[in-house]
């Protein structure tokens, strides 16, 4: 069976714990557009390493706490 890897994230959870930070606020913090944050959160876009670090820094967390690389079976 073919195995595929996928980048998943906990941005929604981190936003909730950051006093329900809005996507727009996060976008402004990391210098991206709200559209990009929406796409990342929905798993439609894998951010660059730099943006992933910026997002993790915005929450004061480590990158591996926010993003994970998981194997998915199809």
């Amino acid at each position, binding site marked *: 069976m073919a195995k595929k890897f996928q980048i998943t994230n906990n941005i929604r959870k981190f936003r909730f714990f950051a006093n329900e930070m809005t996507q*727009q606020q996060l*976008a*402004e913090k990391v*210098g*991206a*557009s*709200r*559209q*990009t944050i929406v*796409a990342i959160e*929905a*798993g*439609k*876009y*894998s*951010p*660059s390493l730099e*943006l992933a670090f910026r997002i993790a820094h915005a929450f004061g967390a480590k990158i591996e706490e926010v993003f994970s690389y998981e194997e998915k079976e199809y």
Partner: protein
Amino acid sequence: MSYQEKRTIVSIIIGVLILAAYCIYSYGKYQSGDIAPDDMKTWSGIILVFIAIGVISGIVIQIIFHILLSIGIAIQEKVKNDRCDDKEIAKTIDAEMVTDEMDKLIELKSMRVGFITAGIGFVSALLTQILNYSPAVMLNVMFITFSAGSLLHGLTQIYFYKRGITNG
């Protein structure tokens, strides 16, 4: 819908209108016998005029679109919060129109689709000469496929914004 998507849709509409106008105008002229199929000078002149119209109207309509969008955002902000000042409105407009790495990746990937279409058009245009068609056919095939490449570029952008994009 994001600013980039709206801007792309406006570009596609302008492109379709210019291409349709060119097809109607040139077909009408050709049917009435005003232009001969081997009259390269006239065909080149018409194509150049339509390229100029496309560039100028594209710039003007994008400026108008930008102004209208800014007004729309300002009105929305005023409705949401009556006491918001100009600085806050300007900040919201800037945030709405920011271009980041995802936009650049989408631009690059969709541009490739546009270039491939234009490349196929160029080869097809050369083939028309091998198959003994008139030079006007070559010019028209080139112009139409280059325009189609530009439209496909826009459509691919919309597709990537809707479906998402990966770095692979």
